[in-house]
């Protein structure tokens, strides 16, 4: 616990630098990643991340030192090359994009590993730490290196801010951007460059292998909370920063641990929480909504069956048995029982000694469902020229969805018809 307070008081200047570094690295790659994600290029980011390794190794072999600027140039070049090759392979051969991505990713990484093992065996003393590119070590980023990467991170954030409108257009509606006369190729080039740069800084924090997570996961998590791209970018940046902070803390308390995987586990946890619990798009919310709608449909169908029974001889408030209801429509026994129970507590039905009958509100609701069904059947036959024997199923679905406004418009459009295509009466009032 002591180390916890020591770390989060940020009194030690070293800790301060590490924290600032991790926050910048993770949030800048998360911000650029939002556009990569929206452009559905998430796995391309993965390929770039792997392809950076041979660049790093090659520039080390050529220069013999570990200067961050030289390594960044090397990484940038092979990262770019990988993207160009993926495009060429996809365009000029029958191979699909996913094969091209997987191929370039693994082959570039293989070449990188081959070079790395040669360097490691060469006995060059300054090579130690080169393998930190593999799994990342945000905490080891100090001094000049920190300044260089911080500057690139800031450049990334500023570029996104400056070209926000163009990047957004490209992500959502490329064709519209073309018609506006925007230089789409140039913006695409910008996004690619930003992605490669984001990978180059991001691998400092999480390493080559897991870099894809830093681009994709914050954006994927943010997507579940909002429909607004500005909010999404902020959320992605915050989620990214949180994981970066956690990573810095973990490398402080457990220096032997690789930081990258921990950052990825933290950001993935945030993402899974978002996937399940986010209101609106979250999986649990969706399941709940689906259940609610299913119940509503089931209940309306029960009311409809009772109304159909009542239509025979106009005895709407007659008491009915379960068998009678089932004779009008098939229900799962369990669904019928729970539906009837719900309808009684909602005041639509009465139950006396096992016999079920409408209340006034229940009759009105059943009647409305039947009316909507018949109005829709009529609409389909009159306006879409569908044969009368083909309209039932469609009407059976839409009757639960039509709003009072649409109901009014349908009535007006069809001029308050008396009967549906099957000559059944359309009930009003």
């Amino acid at each position, binding site marked *: 616990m002591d180390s916890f307070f020591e770390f989060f008081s940020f009194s030690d200047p070293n800790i301060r630098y590490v924290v600032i570094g991790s926050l910048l690295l993770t949030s800048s790659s998360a911000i650029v990643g939002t556009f990569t994600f929206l452009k559905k290029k998430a796995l391309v980011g993965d390929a770039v991340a792997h392809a950076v390794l041979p660049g790093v190794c090659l520039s080390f072999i050529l220069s013999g030192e570990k200067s961050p600027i030289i390594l960044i140039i090397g990484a940038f070049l092979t990262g770019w090359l990988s993207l160009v090759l993926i495009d060429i392979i996809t365009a*000029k051969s*029958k191979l699909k994009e996913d094969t091209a991505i*997987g*191929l370039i990713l693994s082959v570039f990484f293989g070449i990188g*590993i081959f*070079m790395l093992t040669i360097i490691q065996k060469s006995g060059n003393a300054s090579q130690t730490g080169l393998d930190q590119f593999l799994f990342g070590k945000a905490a080891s980023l100090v001094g000049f290196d920190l300044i260089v990467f911080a500057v690139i991170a800031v450049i990334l954030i500023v570029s996104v801010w400056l070209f926000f409108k163009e990047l957004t257009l490209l992500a959502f509606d490329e064709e519209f951007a073309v018609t506006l006369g925007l230089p789409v190729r140039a913006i695409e080039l910008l996004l690619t460059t930003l992605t490669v740069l984001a990978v180059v800084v991001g691998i400092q924090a999480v390493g080559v292998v897991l870099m894809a997570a830093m681009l994709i996961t914050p954006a994927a998590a943010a997507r579940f909370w909002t429909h607004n791209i500005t909010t999404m970018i902020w959320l992605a940046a915050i989620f990214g920063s949180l994981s970066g902070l956690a990573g810095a803390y973990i490398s402080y308390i457990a220096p032997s641990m690789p930081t990258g*995987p921990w950052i*990825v586990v933290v950001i993935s946890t945030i993402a899974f929480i978002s996937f399940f619990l986010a209101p609106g798009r979250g*999986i649990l919310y969706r399941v709940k909504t689906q259940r609610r709608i299913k119940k509503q449909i089931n209940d309306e169908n029960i009311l409809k069956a009772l109304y159909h029974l009542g239509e025979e001889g106009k005895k709407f408030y007659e008491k009915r048995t379960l068998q009678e209801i089932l004779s009008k429509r098939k229900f799962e026994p369990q669904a019928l029982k729970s539906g009837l129970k719900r309808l009684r507590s909602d005041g639509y039905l009465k139950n006396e000694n096992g016999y079920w009958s409408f209340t006034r509100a229940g009759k009105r609701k059943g009647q409305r469902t039947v009316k909507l069904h018949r109005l829709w059947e009529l609409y389909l036959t009159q306006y879409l020229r569908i044969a009368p024997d083909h309209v039932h199923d469609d009407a059976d679905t839409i009757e639960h969805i039509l709003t009072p406004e649409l109901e009014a418009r349908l009535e007006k459009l069809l001029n308050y018809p008396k009967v549906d295509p099957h000559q059944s009466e359309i009930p009003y009032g």
Partner: protein
Amino acid sequence: MHALQIILTGSIVAISCGLLGCYLILRRMAMVGDAISHAVLPGIVIAFLLTGARDSATMVIGAGILGVLTTFLIEFFHKKGRLQTDASIGVTFTWLFAIGVILISAFAGKVDLDQDCVLYGEIAYVPLDLWITESGLIMGPRVLYTTGAVLVVILIFILFGYKELFLTTFDPAYASAIGISTALWHYLLMGAVSITTVASFEAVGAILVVALLIAPPATAYLLTENFKFMLVTTVALGILVSFSGYYIAVWLDGSIAGAMASVAGILFGMAFLFAPGSGIIIKVIRR
């Protein structure tokens, strides 16, 4: 003798991966294969912790479970969460791989695995790790047996399920019309990919196995239109990759698995440029 054992292991791994890779790239599932190869890592480590040894059977089970779980999660997030497929793949496999690496670091003392092995395997040590029976009889390299057994399983799988795999790959609608379950064969294939990845793990690591899954089949695909011929070409390429990869690695003193992946890439590049019919340089010359 050692060289032969290493090349043989490399070839076996390359053949198993390549055969399955043919189906993966034709089903547009190359990246799912990539995801599985990363995601089986925690399964391997947990199996290691449970048995305390490189017990092949437990590992295969552990990885098989993880592999199928990965495919399931990817589909779950895609269908239930409506997350786009590429993001669904990316989120799932990075998460599982990260857990695997953390487990390795946390149990560094107890698990005879390290990050290097994860990245590029230990094929150079294959001849040193011998299978010795209780009576003291030396049977030869242990990894050779495990990878060999998996190759046999894969061959049986492809031979006996040839029609089903072929139809579900090329014409899933027709396949389901004549009563072949596409879902079943999908999961069987994913299971096979998981098992192969695990068996290849010790030899070439979790990431370079992807190169063997994708590069030789992609190369073969450029060379032929005939599926059976594509499988045969893939096998030949696998052996070639293993053979030349080994000698290049020895020559330059680097990782054998890394060299194998590099050679696989070079062979693809040559096919891409010079393949009769589809190579882009050939096309230019013809024009």
